[in-house]
């Protein structure tokens, strides 16, 4: 009896320690990543002011003297991300509402399978399909000199964000208690009035999380944008021009730099900027979610 109890205590002890160790490990890893990012990234600012780095209009990292202005890259990322968000959020949320609230059970199954399939396509493959189908289409349809534009990138990225948005928002809507809907219907609300006034507001925090995760995926995405946006580090005047994003710059140039060179440090500094952007988006989402809980 007492031995059993002691064994149990020992087991509890180990389980507890293992769990807290993995928790601590994840924090340590994040801190280490951040430290390395800072160490290499901040080295750039010995030769370049933060001001020039963020607001410089020219990115010529290998000319002499090099110019490390990432404003065009920041704008490229913003344009592509904003475009992708503007396309994917309305369509994604609307599909989620359709799947969760309107479609018949059979159609629902097909649509959910379709969304999962879309999520399973690797981004390189999507990028490749975009290059051979979407890019020529955009070029012809808008009569542009090239189809490799921010707009094409936005469409492609919208496809990548959509599965995330649809499936998470759909879960949030399905989780709304049936009694909420019945409460509204019993008052004579139509199906649409119920969705609009009761179901969607009840699922709001889940839908916001879905959107944030979708947008997060868009910002971090590299392969497909690199293939499809034209990769020109110039300040875009419209979404129908080639752009280059922060992520694509790191991916494309990291292989060609000498470790320890200014260019190398500049790429790390871009990493810091990306990190901060993602951090702020997550923080805003978090603030929103906590506001909802109160």
């Amino acid at each position: 009896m007492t031995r059993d109890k002691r064994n149990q205590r020992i087991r509890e002890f180990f389980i507890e320690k293992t769990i807290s160790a993995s928790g601590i490990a994840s924090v340590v890893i994040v801190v280490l990543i951040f430290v390395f990012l800072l160490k290499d990234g901040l080295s750039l600012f010995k030769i370049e002011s933060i001001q020039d780095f963020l607001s410089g209009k020219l990115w010529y990292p290998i000319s002499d003297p090099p110019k490390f202005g990432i404003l065009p890259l920041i704008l490229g990322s913003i344009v592509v991300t904003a475009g992708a968000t503007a396309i994917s959020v309305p369509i994604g949320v609307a599909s989620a509402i359709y799947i969760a609230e309107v479609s018949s059970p059979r159609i629902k199954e097909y649509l959910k399978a379709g969304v999962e399939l879309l999520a399973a396509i690797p981004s390189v493959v999507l990028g490749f399909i975009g290059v051979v189908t979407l890019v020529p289409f955009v070029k012809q349809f808008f009569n542009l000199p090239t189809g490799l534009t921010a707009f094409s990138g936005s469409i492609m990225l919208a496809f990548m964000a959509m599965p995330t948005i649809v499936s998470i928002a759909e879960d949030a809507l399905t989780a709304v208690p049936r009694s909420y809907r019945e409460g509204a219907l019993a008052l004579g609300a139509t199906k649409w009035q119920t969705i609009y006034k009761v179901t969607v507001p009840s699922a709001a925090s889940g839908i916001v999380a879905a959107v944030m995760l979708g947008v997060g995926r868009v910002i971090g995405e590299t392969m497909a944008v690199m293939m499809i946006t034209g990769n020109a580090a110039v300040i875009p005047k419209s979404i129908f021009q080639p752009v280059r994003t922060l992520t694509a710059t790191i991916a494309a140039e990291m292989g060609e730099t000498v470790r320890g060179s200014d260019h190398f440090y500049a790429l790390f500094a871009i990493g810091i900027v990306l990190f901060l952007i993602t951090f702020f988006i997550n923080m805003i989402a978090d603030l929103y979610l906590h506001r909802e809980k109160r």
Partner: protein
Amino acid sequence: MVSPKISVKDLDIRFGGIHALKEVSLDIMNNEILGVIGPANSGKTSFLRAVNRFNDLVPNYQMSGRITIDGLDIYGQVDRNGLRRKVGMVFALPVPLPLSIFDNIAYGPQLHGISSRKKLCEIVEKALKAAFLWDEVKDRLKKPAHNLSGGQQQRLCIARTLAVEPEVILFDEPCSGLDPISTAKVEEAMLQLKSRYTIVLVTNNTKQAARVSDRTAFFLMGELVEIDKTDKIFTAPADTRTSDYIEGRFG
């Protein structure tokens, strides 16, 4: 003889293979409380949800028979939302919408096109008073309805139903989760409402039916065993199954 408010003829309900209600016919009069009692799965809820067409939400639902309100077949050309406005429903578990107390009640009238703030305030106050809740919440109308106690939430749901000015109110075990004092308040509200509404009260508590209903119907396994004046059902029922149930011998 006065014509009934609601007339149910040969109502038969199936959910897939389950025969929930078998050929039930009964009339419900204006300004009466009809109590509906019976053991679990006897079809009470199915009956109630046929009257506001809530069963329509169930995918494999089949029904036959006729239900008329004021002589109009509700499964005919009547639109469902209009019907549900006329036939309100209060559920067993009070579920306030995730809104403030005020908005919970204003929600229904707003759906039906009332937008004047002044008018809405009047409606909210009147509905809360009729549900015996006004004094308890009048100082915190802007607070979330979820913070109310269970009994208050149920009266809020009653007020919400009253705010759309229905003619019939269906109660499905409205006091099953409430303490005796809250129950008494809800019953008091029902007795007051009787003068202006037609009420159907499904209850698992036979004593409650005895206290508030004018007539009582006893359902058993999807059949209407008998329906009569409440006194008669509780003192001298025609069917032995009724007395067995009331005296707690089964179910």
